[in-house]
Structure formats: C-alpha cells, structure tokens
C-alpha cells in the first residue's frame, strides 16, 4: 500500500442521533490520489460519514484527521479546514441568485479574500475545467441538472481542496446527464485529486475506483479492490446488496 500518510484518517468514528447510533466505529484511511467508493443500502450511514468529515455533522466520538489537521479539535479553525475539503451534494445546492461564476467565486472572494479580477480568473479556470466555459454568466435555473452539478464541482475545486467528498453526485440527474458529471470526475482523478465518492454508479466504481467500501447499518462490512468486491465478495450481506442494485 501507499507509504505516504493518509489525507483523510478516520478512526473509531461513532455518531448517534438521539438514541439512534448510525455510525458504529468507522475506521477509514484515504491516501493521496486515491479514489475510494462507498456503497451500501439506504440509511447505512454513508452521508453521515461524509458529513462528519467536514463537521456538517458533529461526531459523537472517535477521531478524524484531514491533511494532518485534527477535525474534531476545538482549537481547529473549521472554516479554514473546510476550504481544504471540497463537498458535492446530491441536490447541487447552487446559489440561485448568483451566476455560475458568482457561485464559484463567492468563497474565493470572501474566504480566500482574493481581489475580484483574481477570483474571476480562477473561477473561469475552474468552470473551464468542468467544460462550462460558455456558461459563466448563466444563472442556475438556466442550466441543466448536469451542468448545475458541474458548477457545484467547480465551486469546490476552485478552492484547490486536498480532498473531494461526493455524496451521490449523480442520483438527482436524468440518465443522459450522468455521463458528463462522471467525465469531470474521471478528469479530476487523472489530475491526481483524492476523492471519496458515495454513489450507486457501479460501472463507474468498477472502472475508476481504487477501493470499494461496503457499509451496512453503520459499519464497514468489507472493502477491497473493485474486482474483489464485485466479483467475489466475502460477505453474504455485500452479495445480496449488489444483486439487488445490479438487478434494479
């Protein structure tokens, strides 16, 4: 395995909502340039795991380190840390009152404090990277779902994060728009981005993932290379899940 220290290092992570424990001791290390795929049935805690990593959700116990910074420490400047963790949501969450460029440059100007023209330059470059050079001035309602998701990716990428977290980035898209988003993710992987992807795009996982993790009921049941998980999973739970997904 990779000798370099992990970008994301999760140990013994537990999370409860009230009396309901939805993460029951998760250990996960993601190394530089790795693409880790997380699969699992609805309610297994995939989103919660991602959201704990940038503290959109407060972990109950355990430890999370991102790029050598203790995420859960009280002395950590969470806003600085979040710049280094890009997050992409199922529902895009673009700001509807801003153009594509406005969406991408808001954090550049208000968080990184770049001057407007420098922010615009970087914002345009990020939109160019996701193939939306000609949509910089479009408002979200003027864009297709796939284009909106690519703007959302550019918004995260423009901050030059160390790691990108994707929570079902293509689940809200019409089938014919999925490919465009996956192409962007392929290009990111090629350029060396470290990525954690929660998704049901099994074909994409097979082709692009370094590792596939199967979660069920708040635990990691098993993990391995895509060929191992898809071809010959050790656990019955994994096989049942895959049968259901691939059949449906």
């Amino acid at each position, binding site marked *: 395995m990779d000798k370099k220290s992990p970008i994301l290092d999760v140990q013994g992570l537990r999370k409860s909502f009230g009396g309901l424990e939805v993460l029951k001791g998760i250990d996960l290390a993601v190394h530089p340039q790795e693409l880790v795929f997380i699969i699992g049935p609805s309610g297994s805690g995939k989103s919660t795991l991602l959201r704990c990593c*940038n503290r*959109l959700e407060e972990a109950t116990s355990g430890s999370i380190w991102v790029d050598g910074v203790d995420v859960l420490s009280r002395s950590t400047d969470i*806003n*600085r*840390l*979040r*710049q280094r*963790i*890009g*997050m992409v*949501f199922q*529902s895009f*969450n*673009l*700001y*509807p*009152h801003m153009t594509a460029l406005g969406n991408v440059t*808001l*954090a550049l100007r*208000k*968080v990184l404090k770049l001057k407007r023209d420098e922010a615009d330059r970087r914002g345009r470059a990020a939109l160019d990277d996701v193939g939306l050079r000609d949509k910089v001035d479009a408002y979200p*309602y003027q864009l297709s779902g796939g284009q909106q998701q690519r703007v*959302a990716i550019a*918004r*995260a990428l423009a*901050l030059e994060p160390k790691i990108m977290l994707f929570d079902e980035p293509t689940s809200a898209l019409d089938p014919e728009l999925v490919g465009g988003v996956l192409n962007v993710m392929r290009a990111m992987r090629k350029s060396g981005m470290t990525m954690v992807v929660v998704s049901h795009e099994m074909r994409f996982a097979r082709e692009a993932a370094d590792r596939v993790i199967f979660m069920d009921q708040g635990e990691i049941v098993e993990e391995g290379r895509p060929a191992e998980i898809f071809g010959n999973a050790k656990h019955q739970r994994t096989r049942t899940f895959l049968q259901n997904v691939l059949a449906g």
Partner: protein
Amino acid sequence: MDQIVANFFDLEVMARYLPDILSGFVLTIYLAVAIVLFGLALGLALAVVRAFQIRPLNWLIVFFVDLFRALPPLVIMIIFYFALPYVGVELGGFVAAWLALGFVLAAFAEEIYWAGILSVDKGQWEAARSTGLPFFRTLRSVVLPQALRLTIPPLTNRTIAITKGTALASVVAVPEILSQATAAQAFAANTSPLTMGAIAYLILFAPLVTLSRWIETRFAWRR
C-alpha cells in the same frame, strides 16, 4: 345634490384651508418615511440576531415581537405620549407616533424576515459553510438575498397597512393630514376639508399600492 356639493366640495373653503392640509401632507410624509426606515431596519436587525439562536436574546425578541403585534397601535401611541411622561420620558407627539408605529412595523417585519430566512433550503447553508464561509457571511451573502426576495410582497403590504396608521397620530397632537382636516372642518363648519384630507391620503398611498403590485410581479421568483 347641491347640498352634497356645498358640504363636500366648497371650493372657497377648500382654497382657504389648502395650506393647512398641505402642511399636514408634508408632515405625514416625514412621519411615514421615518416609520418605514426605522421599522424595516429594526425588524431586519432583530431577525438577524435571532438567526444566531442565542437563547436569552431569542426570548427577548419573541417577547418584543408578540407584544407589539398584540397591542393595538393606538394604545401604544397613547402610552408613549400620555403615560411615559409620568416616568420622566417626554417624547412629544411626533416621536411618540414614530416610535409606536415603528415598533409595530419592526415586530411584524421581524416575523416576515424570519419566516423568509427559515424558508431558505438547508442545503444552501450547507453548501456555503462547506466552502469555508463563516456563519454571518453565509447569512448575508447566500441566505438573506434569497429570503428578502420572498419577503418583499408581504412586507410591502404590511408596511402600507401600518403607515396608514399615521392618521392615528392626530390623537397625540401631531398636525398631520387628518388632524389638520378635522380642525379645519370645525372652524369652517363645513366638511370639505375632510374631502381634501381623503384626497391627500389617496395621493400619498395610491402610488404605494400600485408600486406594491408592481413589486409583487417583478419579484415573482424563478427557480
């Protein structure tokens, strides 16, 4: 018919009292503008403070809002003008009317802004915070612009309704349109000044009502 004309449209009486009505008109505009600026600004400030979810402050805000929404504006005005002097606070009629209606507008406006803030999708907060934007910056640059758009129609209606309450200020000796008109009517023993008062109110508020219609269509919001 002649009687109606003589009583409601006596041109000689109208000409004599036109200056009084005009001065009432100007004063009413001052009062209305002061109420709107103060009420909308205070309401927004309260809603923003409320967004920080600091328990004791929230209780205070909710108490203020419910109090000023529950009391009739005339009662508040009279308390400010007639009762506060007993505790050493002399406000004067204009200030009493201004603060009374300003607080009422602030209370209603706070509720409207707050509902607007709550109606913005949680995903907007999460997306902004995940890029490192701090809480207040997210509120200001991402949430409020969307919230305010939704609040403009109800806010305009509420503002017009409360600003019309400037007529109540006649009770606390503010020489605004209505008090000028009733005084003139008593002097002249003729109701034509009231006609002029009504026309003055129309001139003042009809454009506002039209404006609010325009605003409602203008800000109907594409998603």
